[in-house]
């Protein structure tokens, strides 16, 4: 256990946890956009920057900085606010159509932006990388990644054509903060439009509705679900699980 001081309040947490985790334990709010508990810290959005006094003065990302004994930080100094404001203004300029970003900015006191828009008005992606990271770290498929760099950086499939690795699980869309990823099921097909990929869906053995691509079975190694459940849709899975519980309890 180590003791840190956040906003003049001391807290003891396990060594190796981050400043952000310590702050959350204290009930302190630090804004984040590219952080997710299930994923390794990335440090791309810079919204979680806090001003460190010890061991070294400077701005650090609270999502990644490991707690150490004697660390002293402040989360709401003028410096932090100044950087945060400009980051939000840059986001507003990049994604003017995103309600999520507008609401976040407003909640942090930023109503408008002084900067101009370079790309499309409808742009929703701000390259937080959550989709790439979930596909790599949790799903293990690495179907999408960043291509190019700098102003040209975007998330894409290899060669920007239909992916051979995508299993259509939709984890990317689930973690995307702005809803930039388009996935739609029509009949027996799942269209992952953003990834130029279409996958055929299989039918649920119980209700016979199309529910998931066969390829999702590749998740068997990562997700602990009974073998028979892989052919059953989530609704029916729940029903079956419920039935089992009821059945099991009768034996007690």
């Amino acid at each position, binding site marked *: 256990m180590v003791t840190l001081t956040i906003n003049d309040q001391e807290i003891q947490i396990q060594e190796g946890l981050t400043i952000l985790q310590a702050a959350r334990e204290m009930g302190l709010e630090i804004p984040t956009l590219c952080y997710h508990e299930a994923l390794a*810290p*990335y*440090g*791309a*959005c*810079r919204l979680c*920057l806090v001003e460190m006094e010890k061991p070294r003065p400077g*701005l650090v*990302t609270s*999502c*990644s*900085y*490991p707690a150490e004994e004697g660390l002293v930080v402040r989360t709401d100094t003028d*410096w932090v606010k*100044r*950087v945060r404001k*400009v*980051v939000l203004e*840059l*986001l507003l*300029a*990049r994604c003017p159509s995103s309600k999520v970003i507008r609401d976040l900015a407003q909640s942090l006191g930023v109503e408008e932006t*002084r*900067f*101009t828009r*370079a790309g499309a008005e409808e742009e929703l992606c*701000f*390259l937080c*990388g959550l989709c790439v990271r979930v596909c790599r770290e949790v799903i293990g498929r690495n179907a999408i*990644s*960043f291509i*190019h*760099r*700098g*102003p*040209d*950086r975007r998330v894409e499939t290899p060669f920007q054509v239909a992916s051979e690795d995508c299993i259509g699980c939709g984890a990317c869309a689930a973690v995307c903060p702005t809803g930039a990823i388009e996935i739609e099921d029509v009949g027996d097909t799942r269209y992952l439009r953003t990834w130029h990929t279409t996958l055929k869906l299989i039918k649920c053995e119980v209700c016979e509705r199309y529910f998931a691509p066969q390829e999702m079975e590749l998740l068997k190694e990562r997700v602990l679900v009974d073998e028979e459940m892989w052919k059953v849709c989530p609704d029916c899975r729940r029903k079956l699980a419920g039935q089992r519980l009821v059945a099991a309890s009768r034996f007690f």
Partner: protein
Amino acid sequence: MPLRKDATVGSNIRQAVLVCQSTGCISSKSPLIKAALEEEVAALRLAESVQIKPTGCQGLCEHGPNVTIEPEGILYTHVKVEDVLEIVRSHLRDGRPVERLFYRDAATGERIPYYRDIPFYRKQERLILRHCGHINPEEIDDYLAVGGYQALRKALFEMMPQQVVEDVKRSGLRGRGGAGFPTGRKWQYCRDAPGAPKYVICNGDEGDPGAYMDRTILEANPHSVLEGMIIGAYAIGASEGYFYVRDEYPLAVERVRRAIAQAKERGFLGEDILGSGFDFQVAIVRGAGAFVCGEETALLASIEGQLGEPRPRPPFPATSGLWGKPTVINNVKTWASVPPIITHGADWYARMGTERSKGTVVFSLVGKVNNTGLVEVPLGITLREMIYGIGGGIPNGKAFKAVQTGGPSGGCIPASMLDLPIDYETLTKAGSIMGSGGMVVMDEDACMVDVARYFISFTMDESCGKCIPCREGIQEMHKILTDITAGRGKEGDLERLEELAYVVKDGSLCALGGTAPNPVLTTIRYFRDEYEAHIKYKRCPAVVCRGIVSSACQHVCPLDQDVPAYIGLIARGQFDEAMDVIRQKNPLPGVLGRICHHPCEAECPLGEGGQPIAIQALKRFVADYELRKGIKPIPPPEKVYAEKVAIIGSGPAGLTAAYFLAQRGYDVTIFEALPVAGGMLAVGLPEYRLPKDILNLEIEAIKRLGVTIKTNTPVGQDITLKDLRDQGYEAIFIAIGAHKGLKMGIPDEDVAGVLDAMSFLRDVNWGRQVELGNKVAVIGGGNVAIDAARVAKRLGCEVQVIYRRTRAEMPAFKEEIEGAIEEGVDIRFLAAPVRVLSSDARLKGIECTRMELGEFDETGRRRPIPIKGSEFTVDLDTLIYAIRQEPDLSFLLGDGIEVSAQNTIIVDPETFATNVEGIFAGGDTVSGPATVVEAMAAGKTAAESIHRYLRGESLQREHKVTRPAVYVEPVELSAEEVDQILELGRPAMPSLPVVKRRDNFKEVHLGFTAEMAVREAKRCVRCDLESLEEARE
């Protein structure tokens, strides 16, 4: 330097010819030189005693291809294949070195045979660059012969690993990749970190444009780096290492590969190195073209096969690096610094440098500097010593403007900080960085806003794009800078730019974003006025930004004359239309066509080849053409206003203000103290430069607009400013010039026979009797001095001019100086008066001292310093001084007008309004002695201000980018015509032969003929047409 003993050749080698085979010299055909040398040496049967050896970079890259002859230590520069014969025969065979190939000092012209005597080398401490250029990088035996791998032996067999770390710590060595982190401390962290295997990595991803130190070391002495890495690996307990070399360095990759293979062969790599029990092997990984992969965590990602983008730190690579294992990453130069530290000890190393920045650093000194190349010096040397002492100063006599240190994200440091001792801390404080050692020198022709934009475009392209501040912030900064340089800058841009710069710097994930704003922040800090010029005034002082400058000539013309338009019309033979274009903005073309200082010609791009377009002569041609026909009457103004305007002074400023106000429709009266109108034009300029009848014809044309000129009417005596008001003049423009000559400030100058140049010229112009002796000296170097000298010469005197600097620095127009010398005026350079010698209060002579040129100052000129004991006397009966003039404001008693300490009238620089309502001022009265065209420009702007004032409008001026009023279709030229025009070049101005100039004041320059004018106009390359495309959109 020990020559290699090669058993196969025998010990008869007496000379070694070292041929530089670095990338730079190779691109200048050095492999052919080497082959030719080998061939010739063999042909003359000298191969037994002469060895031809390829080496890496020898250092004086500006003067390559370089060839060094040892053991003498003679350096040949700019060697060509054709020189080989002479080198072999004359030097190697006959023992007579080839003098014409010796290095030549640009400043002194001296030829220096031995490289150790060349200041470029003498002032360096080549430690990291040791042996570069002296050994064959592809032969490990050469490295061994100069003591290679001795440090490794010492470390392995005489020191414990922790001792090695201690030595490096105590030496004070700091990372030479840019961040300057203490190397020993990094090694300690890594050594202490749990985990295996550990790695050492050499960061050879040198990406800074213009930087080639790391490349050079890898190409010229790769073993020096390898040895350092093996020692480092031993110190921290690493068993594997990587050379990460950028793919754009194929020669470096090849030489490192070869070095690794040879080291392995000899047992310096692999298992149980030299029998020490220590295992270490190393592989090469090539970069894939991303600048960002020079950042250590991005580099790690790249080696791991991941996307090359940085990771948040902590954890630091020393504890969690390659594949999560403890890793030391150091720059090529850092590794190369290690073996000497082990060999000579930490204390030896720590004796070099400053308190917190120990050792030596390698800079690549490039840009506008005479001796470009790689320079290694101890930290603490000043920028001045680097740029002038080692670099040899700025070429072509230009002034130093700024130096950018540390690469594309380095800050630009101005002339005022040339005495800054270079170390990590001082550079950071100045707003720059040490970086990997880039040093780009810029001269007066650099636009600092354009420089900032250029480097931001580089970092924008190279940003990995991961974090928002860097990716979005730099893009936005680039957009603002592009707008500013295109003339679209607006209020608030600078503030937004600065705000973004600070946030990008503070909020970015890695040092790419963290340093990218430095060029912007430093140029705003040290050159803010240039930004304001671009944003507010739509001007580019360095005349670089094409969005603002359609053509340099028009941009620098104070009157904004549409130069390419009237030149285009002359080329088409349309002289009348050309005149119309000129007169739109200039009421005195006949005058300016003769005496203007033509800043347009100084900026004409054809001037780089020594032949700027003769713009002034072309204007004069059209003016004379019209004057012969009779000046076209100017149509009366559309509107006539009731207000009366008074102008005090009928010089260029006053006449021009009158011209424009009259055209606006105002009743203008000029009050002139002297009996003639024209001011300096009438009384200052000699007749042979500006015939008075030309001036008077143009003044008459102005009067025909309805302007009244009351001569012999000084204001302040018979009429005061208050009187003018009472008489109903609602606006007054004061333009009385600067005619009072300032004295020399030497003892005894108030005796008879000592004259002020202005009075002298005026008296001669009026035909008054002037007391002039026979032996005349003129003190000064400007046009007034030369005018006085040439006038005195025509009056039959023996004339000399005494000037304290050299001819190159004389401010007078070159044509005037040439004319003076042609006419027999003696000019004594590098001399200055000390005191006047007199008897009976009458001049007898002066005592002068000789001067010599000392150190360069920031303006690029060398300071004149008196030479002690060099006093000499000049016998004279007349001394004319032309040092400086100032306005005579004695008439302004009690009028409440603000005056400066230099006795000039203070005005708002935009509107020319004084602090008193309704009173304006312009010309030399405000600026002090300046030029005719600038005075006219002031008159023109003041006229506009006065018009707005009288109409109750805002005096706020609108500034626009430079564009010609009309785009004239260029003449189609056949290929033969083009050839002929280029061959004939700029026509020489026909002039009165010198013999015909004696004893008279006939005009010396006779003007172009129509044929010459049309031909010269066709030579103009019409820079303005590039902006036509955009105008069409």
